[in-house]
């Protein structure tokens, strides 16, 4: 008998459409898998058994009526707990929203439902998406399915771990500085940060609004493309959503090809701090691209070495403003309201009790960077660096079609190793941040296991804004070549748990 949890999303949808299996059977198989192993992984904060089975039944009924099903109808999905879900808890990994039941669906949630995608539950994450390990969740860490003592990446570690442990074939993440791509890299899965504005932010709890971008997570490039197409596109409820056709990502994923493609290797993404096995697998990927017919050139983006510093001023600045809404007055936690305290005192007590240390650090850092006297030196300078980084990308993309790099400097590190060392933690996003600052599209896909620790390594592909389809064309070609070389998809080598 086929194990329904081992199929790709595309295979699952085809089996449901043909009647070989039902959406309810598929949903139940995944709910059983979650019940059996999520105690070890802790990918989910909330499992919506009833909602998932009802959504699956609706797909089966639709098929029984002879209606046409969408390309992902009946496929289960793990939704990052940053998207609002009507009637289903949404915590953002924070105590300040513990028990909150949103009265509305995010646009992404709405589109998933409209596509007949079955939402299994909400996945764990670093509180307010601030982190690179999912250790900053107020509800405890998530484990990496490849090695349960290691981090699954962050902030979307619940989504990546759910995929890598076959608890769901699809997941949604958000990427402010790498929170889709870095978890994908360290779990051997595929993650895409679409062009900024490509996927609506409506109902996605805001961290840093000029950087935040929702996007697809999957086990294959084609599955990511199918999900990308399901959630992307203009939304009048998000004024920064791009009013243009969605790039042809599915067509690109079905036609992987790099012949004649110009690929740039950024010199600045190497050197101190990069693990030897990561560089080895990256260099092999570059060699593979050459063998497949791409033209590879090395180029320099000198401002990229300032990206991390600029990011850790811009993101905290925006977060200090965005998180002001958590005041204990209208929703969420309220602490210390004993009738003697003013609203301001109650707000301060609520935020002290409701936010974890990383969120507090970033709020104070942003408050500092925006305060008069420091504004020009910090926030103002960081915005100028953002201009320089955008110019570096523009110059690079006049010479090449895509850029490639390792997604992360190292493989998954042990849980606890960097938990109270913010600067060490921030280095995990070294290669992913520039694309957020410029608003480009970027993907991470598996390129092998590091020889020294046997853990997954991610290859990052970066394309210009609105050229998301290039990621999928290149990614599909690389994935096909690697799968042929390995004899199977990389995740076949992960422990079965």
């Amino acid at each position, binding site marked *: 008998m086929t194990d329904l949890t081992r199929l790709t999303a595309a295979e699952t949808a085809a089996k449901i459409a043909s009647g070989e299996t039902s959406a309810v059977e598929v949903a139940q198989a995944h709910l059983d898998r979650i019940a059996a192993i999520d105690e070890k992984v802790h990918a989910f904060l909330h499992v919506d058994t009833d909602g998932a089975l009802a959504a699956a039944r609706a797909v089966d009924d639709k098929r029984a009526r002879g209606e046409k099903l969408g390309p992902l109808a009946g496929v289960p999905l793990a939704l990052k707990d940053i998207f609002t879900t009507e009637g289903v808890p949404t915590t953002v990994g924070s105590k300040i929203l513990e028990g909150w039941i949103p*009265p509305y669906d995010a646009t992404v949630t709405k589109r998933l439902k409209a596509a007949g995608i079955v939402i299994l539950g909400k996945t764990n994450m670093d509180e307010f998406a601030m982190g690179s390990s999912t250790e900053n969740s107020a509800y405890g860490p998530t484990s990496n399915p490849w090695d349960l003592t290691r981090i699954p990446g962050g902030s979307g570690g619940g989504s990546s771990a759910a995929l890598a442990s076959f608890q769901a074939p699809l997941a949604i993440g958000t990427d402010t500085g790498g929170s889709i791509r870095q978890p994908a890299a360290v779990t051997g899965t595929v993650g895409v940060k679409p062009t900024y504005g490509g996927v609506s932010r409506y109902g996605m709890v805001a961290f840093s609004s000029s950087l935040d971008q929702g996007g697809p997570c999957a086990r294959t490039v084609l599955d990511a493309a199918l999900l990308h197409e399901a959630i992307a596109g203009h939304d009048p409820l998000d004024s920064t959503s791009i009013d243009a056709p969605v790039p042809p990502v599915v067509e690109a994923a079905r036609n992987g090809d790099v012949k004649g493609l110009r690929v740039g290797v950024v010199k600045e993404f190497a050197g101190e701090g990069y693990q030897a096995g990561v560089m080895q697998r990256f260099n092999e990927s570059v060699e593979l691209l050459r063998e497949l017919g791409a033209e590879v050139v090395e180029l320099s983006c000198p401002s990229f070495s300032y990206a991390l510093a600029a990011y850790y001023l811009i993101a905290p600045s925006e977060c200090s403003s965005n998180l002001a809404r958590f005041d204990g007055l209208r929703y969420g*936690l309220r602490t210390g309201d004993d009738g003697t305290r003013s609203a301001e005192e109650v707000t301060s007590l609520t935020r002290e009790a409701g936010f974890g240390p990383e969120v507090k650090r970033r709020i104070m850092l942003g408050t500092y960077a925006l305060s008069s006297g420091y504004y020009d*030196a910090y926030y103002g300078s960081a915005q100028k660096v953002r201009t320089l980084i955008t110019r570096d990308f523009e110059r690079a993309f006049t010479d090449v079609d895509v850029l490639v790099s390792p997604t992360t400097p190292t493989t998954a590190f042990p849980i606890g190793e960097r938990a109270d060392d913010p600067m060490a933690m921030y280095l995990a996003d070294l290669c992913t941040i520039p694309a957020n600052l410029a608003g480009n599209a970027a993907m991470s896909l598996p390129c092998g296991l590091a020889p020294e620790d046997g853990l997954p390594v991610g290859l990052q592909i970066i394309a210009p804004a609105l050229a998301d389809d290039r990621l999928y064309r290149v990614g599909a070609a690389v994935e096909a070549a690697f799968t042929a070389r390995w004899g199977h998809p990389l995740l076949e080598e992960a422990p079965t748990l």
Partner: protein
Amino acid sequence: MPGITREEVAHLGRLSRLELKDEELDHFAEQLDEIIGAVARVSEVAGEDVPPTSHPLPLTNVMRPDTVRPSLTPEQALSGAPAQEQQRFKVPQILGED
């Protein structure tokens, strides 16, 4: 730039509406000092002539027609309120007695 002191952290806490505990002040002072020391290098690189970028998309004032559309009911809007009274959010005292 001078190091971040515990007094400065307490001030940032007040500005950020965080009632920080005493033991948090030293810990945050040390960490914020390290982070600010590391990110300060942004001021080394860009000259006067480089314009700032606040956003990846060159958007200004995205407008929509001013038409009535469905929204949350009062019950839905108040569904997460810590306290409510007469279809309103009930909040602690905001203004002083005088």
